């Protein structure tokens, strides 16, 4: 039996197919754009094509993410907190705490030995410290999002980005660039600010065991490094971290079908 999980996020929409051995057959990522329903259709078609399957081969579809309820062909909707929890659990059953940083929110999730969510905390007043924040700050510095991690590794000085708002942070970064502050130092400071916010969330839920990270921001080695330095611990990074929610959703589909 093959099930599909579709994670309709604010920045990107992800899909994954798994079989009854809980193996990931295929996954896909597209930009969400303005119409999240269309993005879900596109990524679903893409992932089926990658696996050489058709919709009739899929036994169950679970959607998650902000746009989960807009997907008409879904059999079930589940919050991404539950999906990331289970998605990380099936990757590494030792993990008890997860930090997930997506496009517009950050979450700390504590799970039990079966991958069930025990407690969670999320940013709620603004989206500073999330994927969109990185996107905006990268643009302000004129560098590619993918380069942020390697660039921050070159930092020589400790700098602090004081703003807590994405728009104000962009202004602050533009000023720092204009003053001639080395770009690696600014990037490192941005990563540090994200790590600080993530740590607050982790402390709210309480770290009870090995820490894992999922979500698109986990692909940024600079943020991961800053978090590891701040927490003084190793973080397990999921394979394809941005697709963990979709994989978790597909796994829930296996149990529900």
């Amino acid at each position, binding site marked *: 039996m093959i099930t599909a999980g579709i994670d309709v996020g604010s920045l990107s929409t992800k899909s994954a197919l798994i079989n009854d051995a809980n193996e990931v057959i295929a996954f896909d990522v597209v930009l969400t754009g303005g119409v999240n329903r269309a993005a879900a259709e596109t990524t679903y078609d893409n992932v089926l094509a990658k696996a050489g399957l058709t919709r009739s081969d899929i036994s169950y579809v679970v959607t998650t993410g902000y746009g989960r309820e807009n997907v008409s062909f879904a059999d079930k909707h589940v919050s991404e907190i539950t999906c990331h929890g289970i998605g990380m659990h099936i990757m590494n059953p030792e993990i008890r705490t997860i930090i997930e940083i997506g496009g517009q929110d950050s979450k700390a999730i504590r799970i039990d030995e079966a991958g069930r969510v025990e*407690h*969670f905390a999320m940013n709620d007043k603004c989206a500073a410290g999330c994927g969109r924040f990185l996107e905006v700050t990268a643009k302000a510095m004129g560098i590619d999002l993918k380069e942020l991690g390697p660039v921050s590794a070159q930092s020589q000085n400790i700098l602090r980005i004081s703003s807590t708002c994405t728009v104000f942070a962009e202004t602050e970064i533009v000023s720092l660039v204009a003053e001639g502050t080395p770009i690696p130092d600014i990037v490192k400071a941005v990563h540090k600010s994200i790590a600080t916010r993530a740590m607050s969330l982790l402390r709210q839920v309480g770290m009870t065991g090995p820490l894992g990270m999922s979500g698109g921001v986990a692909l940024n080695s600079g943020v991961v490094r800053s978090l590891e330095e701040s927490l003084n611990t190793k973080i397990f990074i999921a394979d394809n971290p941005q697709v963990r929610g979709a994989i978790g959703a597909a796994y829930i589909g296996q149990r529900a079908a």
Partner: protein
Amino acid sequence: MQPETIQQQRGTQYENLLRLLGEPGSATENVSALKATRMRSILNCYRLAEAYKKGTKVAYVSEQFPTEIVFAMGAIPWNIESMAIMLAQSVDVNRIFQMTQEHELSRDICSFLRGPFGMMLAECYPSPDIVLTNDQPCEGLSKMMFMSGKRYTAPVLGLHSPNSVDDDSLNYLVKQLEQMLLRIAHEFGVELNGDSLRAAVDYSNQARAYYCKTLSLLETHRLPGVSRELQEIFGMNYFGTKENVQVCKVLYEEAVELVQGEQNSGKRVLWIGQVPEESHELLRHMREAVDIIFWAPLWEANSVMLDEAQPLRSIAERAILYHWSAGRMEKDILRICDAYGIEGFLIANVWGCRNMVGISPMLRDVATSRKLKYLTVNLDLVDRNNYAFNHVKNRVDAFLELMQ
């Protein structure tokens, strides 16, 4: 302020209110089918209209003010916070909040305070003859009461309630209440009448008896709409009137009827903190999965029967019990958890409410100690500029999944 001036103002204020009510805004449907709710609505409308009439004595009061005193003095209590929330269901509340910002009141301040401030700026509240306040549980509200007194040049009388329930504290508060009564009588130009206070206390106790019987039923039964109506009765705070006895009696009778056809309505979640209006999307969404009961009407202080021989002393005791003392509140929450079979907490941290922020750690500790699931949401239940349902819904959905 001279009575003639007040009466002229009230005419304009009533017209302003009606105009505001007639504008396209956020009018919502009333989702409760309870008879008690309909009765209370009519009672509210009647009191509201009376307050704008010539010759009516209007006393602005803050939350949990002992209204028996107000009724005993022949005045109508105008709870500035509850009235703002009630009116927010019918008027274009955006315009009200916009007005507060134009007067440099920060959006970070609790909307339960900005609401009444805006209603006063819109000149929609009836001018008060007197302002009566207590400093607990919300000091911010107390300060706003003093500001309203200044705005309307009305005398402001404030109660300072100590934290501990002991003879010294009770005597201190009783003395304040005695002085307050004398001062109100002086301001109103009337004689202090012991009979009217006794009558108000008697009505208060009669209503309270029905209220407590309804609480007892709610402990062990799922009674749709009853917790909400108790919340409204608590918020309206008309204890001391004959009409409120009738509302509480009808609610109790309906609760008895509801016990007969009781249906399982999911796990029971205690909503802690300020409460949005009945038809709010968040409540509607949560109700599909769980049974929500509201914390404030369940407080121990609400069950205090007044001593008819020493009414001021028991009013003083109740006032102290309403104080958000962390130790007492912790015990009370634990009692509520046990008595009402609570399985989860929704802690509504209304933006800018430092009282809620102050007690939140204790609430989280209680939840942890009882192995209850809990969710803290920072939100604004009145000002739509500070709130996006989709964001809140996302975490509420995760909480509901946890509850399952």
